[in-house]
């Protein structure tokens, strides 16, 4: 069974629990926070993914993280379950899928917009309005910044990627000039 398939199963289970408890948004937020913490810290990943670290120690680390992030009971139990089953590495993907499922449940369209520098709010408002008009859905914008883009915008909606960054244009120019 592939990791994506397993992640989708866990996300589906969490979605069902969140809906049954009427706390889906909080659960999504908690799981996202835990996943971001896991993804952002290399030391934490090394400790949790190291098979030489004892099971009880890993469990204690995860308990401590959940306590510090002040996540709910469901999110904590889910995290500890993943730790017991050596599936902690799937946390970011589970969180992403859970968020997508939650958005789909609410009829939301999540769009990730990446720019080289922070742009004016007017641009983001215009973008939001444009996306809602052309998608005929409520849109949630996730704003990101990446100086490597030099300039321009990269928009990601699900599998669709619209890239107008200067970095990509330069790469295209370079490939066009170079022989095959």
């Amino acid at each position, binding site marked *: 069974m592939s990791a994506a398939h397993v992640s989708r199963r866990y996300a589906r289970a969490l979605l069902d629990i969140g809906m049954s408890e009427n706390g889906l948004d909080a659960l999504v937020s908690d799981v996202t926070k835990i996943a971001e913490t896991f993804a952002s810290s290399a030391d934490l990943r090394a400790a949790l993914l190291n098979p030489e670290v004892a099971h009880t120690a890993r469990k204690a680390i995860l308990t401590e993280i959940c306590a510090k992030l002040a996540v709910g009971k469901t999110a904590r139990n889910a995290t500890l379950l993943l730790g017991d089953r050596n599936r902690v590495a799937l946390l970011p993907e589970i969180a992403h899928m859970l968020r997508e499922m939650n958005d789909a449940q609410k009829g939301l369209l999540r769009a990730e917009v990446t*720019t*080289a*520098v922070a*742009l*004016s709010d007017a*641009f983001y408002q*215009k*973008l939001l309005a*444009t*996306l809602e008009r*052309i*998608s*005929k859905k409520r849109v949630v914008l996730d704003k990101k910044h990446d100086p490597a883009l*030099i*300039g*321009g*915008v990269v*928009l990601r*909606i699900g599998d*669709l990627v*619209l890239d*107008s960054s*200067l*970095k990509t244009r*330069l*790469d295209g*120019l*370079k490939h066009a*000039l*170079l*022989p095959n």
Partner: protein
Amino acid sequence: MKKRTFALVFLLASSVGALALAQTRATPHPPRHASSQPQIQPIAAPEEHGKDVEEEPPPAPFKFFDTQILNNKQPPYAAVLLNFVLLALIYYRFGKKPIAEALKERKHSIASAIENAQKILREAKQRSKRYRAKLEQVDADMDEAKQSLASTGEGEAHALFANAEEKAKRIARDAQFLLEQEKKQTQIDLLRATVEDATKQAEALLRSNVTSQDHERLAEEFLKQLEADYAGGLG
């Protein structure tokens, strides 16, 4: 019966002949000077004495037939003749058949030997003829072989030359191809290095010169493009 008679006659003749011969041998020679009184031999010189010793007595008178066969100094000629005739008869009687057969056999063997010799001679002549023909042919063969070798060598030389020419052409062609490949690769490498350098410099230039107005302008362009491309919807 006939054989017995013949044998008896033969024995008799033999015994008479033998007796006559025996008497002849047994009878001493008469003194050189037949005389009843003893004579004093004069002492002669050594030369004279030697002359006396070597002198032979004169032969006895010839007798064809003599009745005194037994005490005769010399056998009568008839006895000797008879003896010879008997001997010839015996030879003829007992030796005719085997001698004839032996001669016949000898004749056959000689004939076969002659025939063999003739056969060998014929073969030798044929062989000699063949060898002579071969010897005559050897010169022609040698000339032919020489010509053949010369033509073959000439052909091989031509083939080698053609092969070498072909190889030289191929090497030149390969070298030209390699040269062109190297040239192309160098051009590509140069172009790649130039493009890499140019894009790096362009990136650095852009990073240093892009202003916030440029960012806003690029964002607006993106929005316009988005509206233009997806006016009909995202699906």
